């Protein structure tokens, strides 16, 4: 080792490289990153460094060689023995690549290595055959080359090149060896000759007919794919022999360089294979498809490029080939499932097996397919050029020509891999579909932001998107126009819950599931609003994929509203059987998708019409740009926006779309891929102006229709009025009849809780004026909370009015609404009762009862009469007066409250509500308005938890009023002065409390509606 002084690091590097190469060659592992490769490398190094073998012993090796020689002799392999002896001796006496000396340790170590690797020669396995083969091979190696050189010189004047002659010189140098070899192997000569004849046979026959051969050579493509090494006639110029020159250089600089077995092809062949690869051909020679991966065959070479250079160029192409292959695979995959219906999304695709790709994928596939058709057309044209041979076409020219296409392929692949390939296999269709659409949409926006630089890309993506979105728009169209959400593959973001029939109360809330949550929280809220909570089981709480078809986001609400409204409407209309009319009308209706395309088209054409000048191209463009810019700017200024950049972009948008409609107006509805002009500087704007208005229009149409139908045919407004009439007692006379009969009963202390009595009273009262409502109204009574019942004001608790609202109006007036109505109803009843109780009291009653004790007493003792009467009359008169006063105060209070609630609250809020109902655009809005109305009156009637203390105070006063009325009726005798005083003070306290609270609230301004109540109560205060 001492002699290996020179730079260690370099030596080590070389060693490392050699060991890696060795492993690659022996194990066949090509990828260095492969863990197995690393394992092998570690194994090799540890063996080299930490072995337990002795150093090479030259004597031992000599002995072994001798032994093998003897073995050959013993086996009577004399010729082999002779060659063995000769070869080993020759080797030991020659110098090695880096060692000039002979018979060094290195020599012995190499021999030792070979001996170790050999299948022990003494073994009986070591038979004739390998020996013969070896010798044969050896002969091939020497003689073949040697003789071929000779033949070529004879044969082809067109074959030789200066370089090859150099090569032959090199090989001439090898001649001594060959001759020596041939000298040894005298007995093999006949065999070689045979071989030689076989090889040369056909050539010789061609020699006889040179015309036919040259014709064929000119007209038939050489079979380069058979990998038979051959020489192709080519120029003798140095430049077209770069590969050979480079080979020569390597050969002369590296003694161990062994030229690989290479297949020579022409550049034309490479170009054609490139074109084939890009057009989706899988079985090629230069490009190999291994496990779905396109690779470049290793041993391909053209004469004018070095191997590495060619390889690097081809590897780039192979990458695009890979993309084509992957996309083609997707197309085949989708096509394979739907071979019957080549037009995806054409409306009626029969339902297939569960794995059948859904319509969005089919549409996407169709868009890709169309793209590839045009791409292939381009490729074919290039190939035709090559075949015609009339223009110069090189690989570089082809790659350059295709570069925009290749860039598009890259984009397509990016979109495809994020939108389709990377989606985990068990994903639901809805997620896949919306993910794909989202990816496209995002890609468009992304490239759109780049501006002019990516116009081509944007237009490509836009056309893809327009195609892909077709099923979605058709689904939307079907839903908002016909009312059924027809989505067999379950790919639409909204899906119908099967278990809810249309004519069910829950229809509006629980019918559809919105399968989308976007990244933003606002949409989650939206989802909660629209999608039903009850149908949540279908969605499952499991890993929420954040998907949302972004482009539908702005109109999602409208779509949902319109869809639901339409479905409802359809069902309402069904009863009226106008289906055939609708069908007839539908025949000449344009689908949403068509409308969308037409709008896009007209939007893009508009710019062209406004700039019809014909000047030289550039000038025209410039002038138009300036003109458009000024127009756009003016427009923007109208909206108070000063943004010159925006104006320029507007202008550009209209200019660049000039060729759009030419390609578009071929009667074909679908936007051609070549609609390059659709620059989407304003992609969202395009959507806004081309898609959303149609949806909006349909939304307004069918929601308005539904509102009309509900209001007209289903008398929604009348039902709302009925609710107010009965629950909110707006039908005063009717309800008066009803409640006074109850109050009278209570006053008489008779039982009134009897349900049949209550219902009879109700029917009688309602039947007179609202006969149609009387059948729907009923009243029930349930006993509640006896603890509370002690207070007279709570006697009425438990009375529940119910109104049977027919479908579909019960969507608006739901049971929950009726509960709120009932709460207000009860409060009103309590106030009315207090008011009634106070109203019916007669002054005479009290006066009469006041006189009775006086008469009694006068009978008992006349003498004391004057004295006693005088002493008693005074307090009785005072008592009566105080009771009169108290009564008036209570009446004032109750009347103020009554007025406040009946006029200020119920009536004015009711008027507002009526206006809003008239203006409501859709059912959801109507429902919301109704709820808002109910919650408003609920709040203002002080029924909310938060203000319960106010309500309690009021209840106390009402209670006082009722107790007072009871006492009044019982007569003065039942009264003690103290109880009157207590009542007075209680009332005063409550009154004070309420006035203070209300004033505070009014001053704070938080409840402006309370002002009137506060004022009137204040007025009562001042008097007292």
């Amino acid at each position, binding site marked *: 080792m001492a002699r290996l002084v020179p730079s260690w690091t370099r*030596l080590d590097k070389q060693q490392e490289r*050699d060991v890696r190469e060795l492993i690659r060659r022996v194990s066949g592992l090509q990828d260095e990153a492969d863990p197995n490769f690393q394992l092998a490398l570690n194994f090799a190094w540890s063996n080299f460094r930490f072995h337990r073998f002795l150093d090479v012993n030259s004597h031992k090796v000599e002995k072994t060689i001798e032994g093998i020689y003897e073995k050959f002799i013993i086996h009577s392999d004399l010729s082999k023995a002779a060659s063995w002896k000769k070869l080993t001796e020759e080797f030991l006496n020659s110098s090695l690549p880096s060692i000039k000396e002979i018979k060094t340790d290195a020599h012995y170590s190499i021999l030792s290595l070979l001996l170790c*690797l050999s299948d022990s020669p003494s073994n009986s396995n070591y038979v004739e055959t390998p020996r013969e083969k070896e010798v044969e091979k050896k002969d091939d190696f020497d003689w073949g080359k040697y003789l071929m050189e000779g033949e070529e010189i004879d044969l082809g004047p067109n074959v030789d090149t200066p370089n090859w002659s150099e090569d032959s010189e090199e090989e001439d140098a090898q001649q001594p060896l060959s001759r020596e070899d041939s000298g040894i192997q005298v007995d093999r000569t006949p065999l070689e000759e045979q071989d030689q004849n076989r090889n040369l046979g056909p050539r010789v026959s061609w020699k006889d007919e040179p015309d036919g051969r040259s014709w064929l050579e000119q007209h038939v493509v050489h079979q380069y794919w058979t990998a038979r090494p051959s020489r192709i006639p080519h120029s003798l110029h140095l430049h077209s022999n770069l590969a050979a020159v480079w080979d020569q250089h390597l050969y002369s600089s590296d003694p161990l360089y062994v030229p690989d077995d290479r297949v020579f092809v022409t550049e034309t062949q490479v170009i054609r294979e490139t074109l084939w690869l890009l057009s989706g051909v899988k079985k090629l020679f230069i490009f190999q498809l291994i496990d779905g991966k396109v690779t470049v065959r290793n041993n391909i070479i053209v004469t004018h490029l070095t191997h590495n250079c060619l390889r690097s160029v081809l590897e780039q192409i192979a990458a695009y080939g890979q993309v084509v292959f992957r996309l083609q695979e997707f197309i085949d995959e989708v096509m394979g499932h739907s071979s019957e219906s080549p037009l995806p999304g054409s409306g009626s695709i029969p339902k297939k097996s569960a794995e059948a790709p859904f319509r969005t994928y089919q549409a996407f596939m169709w868009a890709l397919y169309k793209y590839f058709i045009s791409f292939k057309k381009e490729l074919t044209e290039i190939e035709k050029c090559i075949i015609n041979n009339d223009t110069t076409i090189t690989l570089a020219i082809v790659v350059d020509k295709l570069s925009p296409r290749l860039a598009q392929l890259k984009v397509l692949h990016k979109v495809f891999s994020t939108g389709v390939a990377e989606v985990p296999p068990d994903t639901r269709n809805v997620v896949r579909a919306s993910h794909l659409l989202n990816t496209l949409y995002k890609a468009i926006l992304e490239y759109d932001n780049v501006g002019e630089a990516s116009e081509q890309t944007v237009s490509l993506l836009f056309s893809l998107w327009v195609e892909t979105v077709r099923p979605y728009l058709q689904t939307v169209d079907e839903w908002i126009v016909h009312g059924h959400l027809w989505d067999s593959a379950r790919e639409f973001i909204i899906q119908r819950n099967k278990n809810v029939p249309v004519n069910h109360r829950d229809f509006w809330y629980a019918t559809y599931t919105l399968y989308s949550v976007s990244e933003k929280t606002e949409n989650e809220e939206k989802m909660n609003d629209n999608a039903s909570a009850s149908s949540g089981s279908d969605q499952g709480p499991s890993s929420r994929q954040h998907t949302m078809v972004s482009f539908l986001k702005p109109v999602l609400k409208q779509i949902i509203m319109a869809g639901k409204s339409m479905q409802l409407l359809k069902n309402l209309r069904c009863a009226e059987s106008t289906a055939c009319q609708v069908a007839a009308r539908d025949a000449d209706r344009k689908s949403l998708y068509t409308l969308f395309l037409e709008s896009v088209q007209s939007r893009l054409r508009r710019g062209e019409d406004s700039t019809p000048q014909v000047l030289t191209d550039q000038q025209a463009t410039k002038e138009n740009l300036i003109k458009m810019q000024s127009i756009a700017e003016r427009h923007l200024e109208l909206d108070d926006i000063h943004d010159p950049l925006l104006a320029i972009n507007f202008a550009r948008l209209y200019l660049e779309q000039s060729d759009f409609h030419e390609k578009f107006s071929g009667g074909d509805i679908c936007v051609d891929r070549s609609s390059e002009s659709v620059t989407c500087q304003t992609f969202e704007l395009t959507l806004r102006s081309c898609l959303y208005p149609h949806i909006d229009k349909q939304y307004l149409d069918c929601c308005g229709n539904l509102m009309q139908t509900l209001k007209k045919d289903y008398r929604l407004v009348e039902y709302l009025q009925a609710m107010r009439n009965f629950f909110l007692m707006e039908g005063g006379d009717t309800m008066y009849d009803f409640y006074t009969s109850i109050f009278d009963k209570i006053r008489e202390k008779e039982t009134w809780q009897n349900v049949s009595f209550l219902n009879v009273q109700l029917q009688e009262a309602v039947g007179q004026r609202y006969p149609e409502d009387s059948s729907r109204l009923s009243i029930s009574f349930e006993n509640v909370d006896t603890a509370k019942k002690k207070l007279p004001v709570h006697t009425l608790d438990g009375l529940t009015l119910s109104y049977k609202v027919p479908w579909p109006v019960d969507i608006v007036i739901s049971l929950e609404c009726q509960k709120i109505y009932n709460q207000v109803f009860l409060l009103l009843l309590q106030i009315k009762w207090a008011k009634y109780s106070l109203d019916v009291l007669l002054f005479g009653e009290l006066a009469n009862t006041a006189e009775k004790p006086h008469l009694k007493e006068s009978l008992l003792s006349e003498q004391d009469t004057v004295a006693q009467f005088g002493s008693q009359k005074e307090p009785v008169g005072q008592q009566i007066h105080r009771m009169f006063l108290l009564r008036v105060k209570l009446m004032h209070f109750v009347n103020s409250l009554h007025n406040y609630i009946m006029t200020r609250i119920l009536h004015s809020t009711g008027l507002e509500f009526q206006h809003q109902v008239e203006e409501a655009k859709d059912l959801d809005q109507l429902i919301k308005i109704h709820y808002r109305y109910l919650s408003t009156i609920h709040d203002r009637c002080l029924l909310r938890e938060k203000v319960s203390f106010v309500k309690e105070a009021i209840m106390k006063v009402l209670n006082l009023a009722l107790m007072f009325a009871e006492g009044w009726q019982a007569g003065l005798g039942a009264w003690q002065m103290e109880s009157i005083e207590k009542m007075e003070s209680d009332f005063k306290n409550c009154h004070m409390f309420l006035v203070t609270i209300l004033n505070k609230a009014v001053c704070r301004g938080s409840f402006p509606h309370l002002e009137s109540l506060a004022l009137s109560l204040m007025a009562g205060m001042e008097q007292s």
Partner: protein
Amino acid sequence: MATGSGPGVSMPTNLNAVRETMDVLLEISRNLNTGLDVETLSICVRLCEQGINPEALSSVIKELRKATEA
């Protein structure tokens, strides 16, 4: 016949001699049925020249072959 300035780099005049040696060596290798091809053989020669123990090398090659077959 100038001296090589380092391993693997020799003057071209030496080339033919080296190439002859390699040919001889290839013949020996074939004669012994080692199963080595030209490239592998030249790698082995380089490694041996650099002092790698031949027996260790052969054992590595055998093991790798075994592992590849398995």
